């Protein structure tokens, strides 16, 4: 049969078979048939939104075994119609890539290197620092006018965060008397 092997060539199949335009069966090979899209076998698809710019392209997040295995554009979106740009297409690497840190790191005053720190301990220390800076920078009055505020600590960030996150940050810090709360919108 070896002398008939050329008949398995795609071009021969295209010429002799029904797929004259070479857009279907004629171009398939055993290798084609053995590979599967990486989203096959996903346990679920979760609806999401691209985290980069403000166009708001819709994403579909594919999950298998509680791991994100792929992120693609959502064709249902009237905004993006399934498209993603180079950044949006790199969302999988952004969210699961090697550059992500998963541990709290701590640099003590005058320290020369990072140290490990437990998350609960870090939260407790930060709460103490906020209370102390708030106290040190407290102003009850300025020029005889009540201001009831602190200049002791500040916050920068929010444009990459969710509305619900910005809401809690603004609510908490304002109640603490902080006014130096800012984000990228001014930058």
């Amino acid at each position, binding site marked *: 049969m070896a002398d008939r092997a050329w008949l398995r060539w795609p071009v021969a199949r295209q010429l002799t078979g029904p797929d004259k335009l070479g857009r279907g069966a004629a171009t398939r090979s055993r290798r084609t048939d053995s590979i599967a899209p990486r989203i096959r076998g996903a346990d*679920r698809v979760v*609806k999401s*939104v691209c*985290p980069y*710019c*403000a*166009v*708001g392209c819709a*994403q579909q*997040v594919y999950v298998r075994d509680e791991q994100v295995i792929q*992120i693609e554009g959502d064709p249902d979106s*009237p*905004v993006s*119609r399934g498209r993603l*740009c*180079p950044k949006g297409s790199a969302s999988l*690497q952004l*969210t699961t*890539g090697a*550059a*992500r*840190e*998963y541990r*709290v*790191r701590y*640099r003590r*005053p005058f320290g020369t290197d990072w140290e490990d720190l437990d998350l609960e301990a*870090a*939260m407790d220390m*930060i709460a103490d620092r*906020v*209370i102390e800076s708030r106290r040190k920078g*407290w102003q009850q009055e*300025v020029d005889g006018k*009540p*201001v*009831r505020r602190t200049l*002791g600590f*500040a*916050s*920068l*960030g*929010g*444009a990459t*965060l*969710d*509305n*619900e*996150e910005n*809401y*809690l940050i*603004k609510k*908490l810090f304002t109640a603490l008397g902080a*006014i*130096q709360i800012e*984000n*990228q*919108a*001014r*930058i």
Partner: protein
Amino acid sequence: MAEAHPVGFQWVMEAKQRGATVIHVDPRFTRTSAHADVYVPIRAGADIAFVGGIINYVLQHDRYFRDYVLAYTNASAVLSEDFADTEDLDGVFSGLDRELRMYDMETWRYQRSEVRAAAGDRTPLRDRFTPQQLRQVRRAARGEAHGSGGGAVDPVHDADETLQHPRCVFQVLKRHFARYTPELVAEVAGVPEETFLRVCELVTANSGRDRTTTFVYSLGWTQHTVGVQYIRTAAILQSLLGNMGRPGGGILALRGHASIQGSTDIPTLFDLLPGYLPMPHAYGNEDLDTYVAAESLSKGFWADTRNYMVSLLKAWWGDTATAGNDFCYAYLPRLTGSHSTYETVLSQLSGVCTGYFLLGQNPAVGSANARMQRMGMASLDWLVVRDFSMIESATWWRDGPEIETEQMRTEDIKTEVFFLPAAAHTEKNGSFTNTQRMLQWHHAAVEPAGDARSDLWFAYHLGRRIRQKLAASSAETDRDRPVLDLTWDYPVRGPLAEPDAEAVLAEVSGWGADRTPLSSYTELNDDGSTSCGCWIYCGVYAGGVNQAARRTPGGTQDWVAADWGWAWPANRRVLYNRASADPDGRPWSDRKALVWWDQATRRWTGHDVPDFIADRPPDYRPAADARGTEAISGTDAFIMQGDGKAWLFAPAGLVDGPLPVHYEPQESPFSNVLHGQQHNPVREVLTHPLNLYQPSGDEPGSEVFPYVATTYRLTEHHTAGGMSRFLPYLAELQPAFFCEVSPELAAERGLEHAGWATIVTARSAIEARVLVTRRIQPLRMRGRVVHQVGLPWHWGPNGLTTGDAANELVHLALDPNVYIQEDKALACDIRPGRRPRGPALLDLVREYRQRAAITLKTGTDT
């Protein structure tokens, strides 16, 4: 747009396919230019002259949309006799106090010959406080409050419907822009006359009853000492052409972060409370009554400010907030001037601000004058950085540029640094508000690993801990009541005790009695019966349903696609869309129909949610003493404005003038050809040894910095690089920091393609790979050739692709309305080769400063 918002650009391509003409104005030829029908290179910093030139063309050739202008703009309003324009005063308006760097806006008001005390007229602030105190109010970015509402204005005033009165807005506008001729545009912006006239023809031919033109802008228009006035110029032109509130019209801001719109609406900003309510000021906002009197308008929806504010106070302080205690209004801290991010850096350097949270932001390379940012952080007691990766703002203390220049030694830096890993969008529930004001919900796909947590988790649990500590403290004082009384009882779920984001959204959206969700801000009350965390978002949880999570496929909807996500306010997609119909309520044309008055049902209806009182007929005219929404006539399309009109002239709200004027940037190789006044006289300058300015125009020393520099983004990177320089795919696509220069500039300075160049300003010097390209054309103006240097600003020392940060070069001179810095038009020098290493870098910059004779005072004049 094709570069920084490529997926949004598909709609421009779609429009082009259907016959639209695309015009691209940019100092740099980009992928947008490649698809444009007309590409217009321009000198960075000259757009007011360019767009002002189009306004002049429209007025000189009677190309404005007269019926629209008469019905919906303030063209007919007559101004006070005391108003003097920049044409009368060589570049400044009446009311300038040069010593205080402040305008008294009294002379910018409409004339009102019929004297009639309107109910509730308030004592003007200027009668209660000294000019110095008023300047502090002015410096609290008051122009930003109220969103599009502008400032307080008298709805009853003199008008001339013939538009002939010499002091009516229309005639004032005509005189103001009369010198913005094609010749002047060529002289100031470097745009050849024939190119300019072609743009004028295309824009005017494509505006009117049957056609609309849209303007799209981004930071190229905002990052200037006159940034707000750039947008104002476009607003004047679009109002004259009848392009506002209509499909295919408008002025569209393309914003660069997933929820930068949301973080302005629910502001992590110093000057605002949710929904563009101003933060209370120490002067004039002493209690709830004075706040409401000062900050609400007598006409339109801002007349209901009290409803919005009381409902917000109820959302924050719940049952503690009662009518008897002013709904806890006194719990809010007060402003005294600007507390913007740049003043914060100054207060870090002076030791007042000792703690700093960075929440997904990287100022060590991402904020202007990056060295000053790092010096500020090195003065702190503690710093919390929450991010995905080890960004420069987390590591400057061990390997930042100041370690190399020996300005800092790691072992001498006292700052305690906490790095907390953040959860990604795939690991948390929440909503982003995109650039068209649309909220879209993203669902958590997986739990965050390790110590990574959402910022919702961080804020909630930090608050919980602080409240516990303060409550347990024997030193509990009056100042702790606002924190202890705060409503902070969000349900948590899962192994990480993650707060329920939908519960937060429900609080933002608001509820009435028995926590029944509200469906619209018109349901809010001022008696404490309603609670709402952000009045413009009221209804996003209507019916107890997360409206932001609606995902009816676009293909099954009409072109408005109202059932995907939820746009504020009230799911309207086009603001002020009453203007898409004529005064009688009929669409200006069938082709451009959006909403209209249905006489049969006596309601507004249409493709979009009408942005008008649903049952207010076009022929409704308010009684003379009507107030609030009752005072909105059937043709007052601009319902948030104090007079119901689009403003060709802004009688209030802007601190630097009622009309845009071309001023040169803070640093410019050119003098102002229009006026003796070189700069915006009330721009904000921050005098500090780390923030030296260069001489400009005719001043001696300006020749040391002969080139214009401008910053921009690349498709493959994102902002300061924290979400792109660390990714192998993106780092490979754009692997090095570079500067773009023309072949002519390369020849002039001996720069080699793919070699190195050093770019120098009075702040610092950076090095970049040289990209010699015709994408940046030299412009010819005033008999001179202008060379521009393009700098993508994404780089920094960390990540997979590294390079100097363009922000090292940028100074802090700010727009006085909103406190944004001027990244988009600087003056610089460029020289071949790499920059010096170590302390020699500082020597180079010092040598430049000496050559230009720069002192602390340079560039700080009004």
